[in-house]
């Protein structure tokens, strides 16, 4: 199978600002997560791939074509931007018909496809409403539906769950995972570590316009949990002396007995060891939450 996206030494500058700095990338089938803090160049990266931006130097190739110059290749691609990018004064139906027609789809094909997706997202009832009347989350659902109209071989998603509730976000993630199995290439941009942990896929970490790590979501825990902290909640209060016996540095709000405590660990393997020691000392562990570090800290040694 031909590589969908191939990028070589890509630079993108805006006057004196370097947005992408010598980025090289070859996509893999399925989901490719792109993680990075604000200003890392993630959105610029997607925009260069779909041909919204002309590379300052280097090359962007999608199925062997250059999307900025070869217009037709964009029929095989789709971008869901962080802004919903729909026409507020048109109805949902008019918006979908407009984009579907640009993808050379017939009206009945557009409507059957979009109604199926909207029904599953519980948004079909808004089909004849003007976009301006809808909530931010509903607009995002419509925008996702719009992005799926052409069954893109390359799907670029820029924080697609940013304004969605938990169940809709989960639906989109499951949809994307299934879609990736159909030999499609998906680039999923996010800055939420929590979101990353829900995928088992390739992970690209970007910072200051560069790809700083090409790994998998599984291995991210090596970084996330490095010199990190976890919060342990107990079913009934535990004496401070019991916490001390576990052998890890901790913080607690109370001085004699605590119902929860924050422990400092070196890596994810410490979680099992710490909990084992607490249980051995007759503490009843009710729950463990890791305290999510700032995305800026990822791949910087914790």
């Amino acid at each position: 199978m031909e590589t969908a996206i191939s990028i070589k030494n890509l630079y993108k500058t805006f006057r004196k600002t370097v947005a992408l700095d010598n980025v090289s990338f070859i996509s893999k089938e399925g989901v490719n997560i792109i993680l990075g803090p604000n200003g890392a160049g993630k959105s610029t990266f997607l925009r260069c791939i779909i041909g919204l931006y002309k590379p300052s130097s280097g090359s962007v190739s999608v199925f062997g074509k250059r999307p900025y110059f070869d217009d037709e290749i964009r029929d095989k691609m789709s971008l869901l931007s962080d802004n919903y990018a729909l026409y507020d004064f048109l109805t949902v139906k008019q918006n979908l018909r407009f984009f579907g027609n640009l993808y050379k789809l017939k009206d009945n094909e557009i409507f059957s496809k979009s109604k199926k997706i909207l029904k599953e997202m519980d948004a079909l009832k808004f089909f004849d409403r003007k976009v301006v009347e809808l909530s931010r989350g509903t607009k995002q659902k419509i925008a996702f539906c719009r992005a799926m109209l052409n069954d893109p071989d390359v799907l670029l998603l820029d924080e697609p769950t940013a304004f969605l509730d938990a169940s809709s976000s989960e639906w989109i993630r499951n949809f994307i995972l299934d879609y990736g199995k159909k030999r499609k290439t998906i680039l999923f941009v996010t800055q939420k570590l929590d979101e990353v942990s829900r995928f088992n896929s390739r992970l690209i970490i970007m910072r200051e316009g560069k790809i700083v790590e090409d790994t998998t979501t599984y291995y991210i825990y090596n970084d996330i949990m490095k010199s990190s902290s976890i919060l342990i909640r107990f079913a009934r209060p535990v004496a401070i002396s019991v916490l001390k016996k576990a052998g890890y540095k901790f913080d607690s709000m109370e001085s004699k007995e605590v119902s929860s405590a924050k422990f400092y660990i070196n890596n994810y393997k410490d979680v099992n060891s710490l909990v084992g020691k607490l249980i051995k000392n007759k503490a009843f562990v009710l729950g463990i939450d890791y305290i999510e570090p700032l995305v800026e800290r990822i791949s910087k040694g914790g």
Partner: protein
Amino acid sequence: MKLNKVYQVTWKDIKETFSSILIFGPMFGIPLAFAVILPVLSLYIAVHEAPSIAAAIKIPNISAALPAFKSIAFMDYFSINILGPITMTMPIITSAVIAADSFAGEKERKTAESLLSTSLSKTELLLGKIFASFLPAVIMAVIAFALYGSIVNYLSFQQFHLFILPTLPWLLMLAAVPFLALAPISIVVLISSHVKGVKEAQQLTSLLVLPLLVLPFASLLGLASLSVSFMLYLILFLAIFDFVLFYVSLAVFHRESLIN
């Protein structure tokens, strides 16, 4: 280039324009109001003030007319040489509002990303946007010409028992509308693609449409005679200018400028 894609962009923009009466109301209302009010005003002036005005601004056609026919000569001159150019330019000026919003609106409302993500070429995009302002301007001009022509004829028949319109220069004025509309609308659309927002585009547009007023004023002051030969040369010049301008627009239009 696929004409269907051009049509889709044009149709989408027109639907957006007509989604609210607050947008299209004034745009259509002003030229149509002019098409009704000005002929009535002309007749009043023709009947009551024609000799004194003709003497003051020295319009040869009217000055040469016999006293009994001065009012008819005035109505004839005014209907064609003054109302004609005003009716030609007014719809173009109001349609420039749509043109100013074309790309600047997409930028401001952040819809340009999804539009540019499709396989639209820059020719299709540019043409689609130009037609979205051009078609309302031309349709509005045809309606305004029909309306003011009918009113002029009705009033002149009631007053003088003759029909003043149509004449060949008047019909050529109507034929010149598409050629006259294309250039300013193309320029405004291009400006709209290079500015940051709609307000900026509208400010520049108001400056750009001013030259359009040259034609009615030149005619009013007797500096331009809207004869058949003048109108034919004007159409030829505008056709060449429009053609060249479109190719220049294509060369300087960059998709990326809609995102930055």
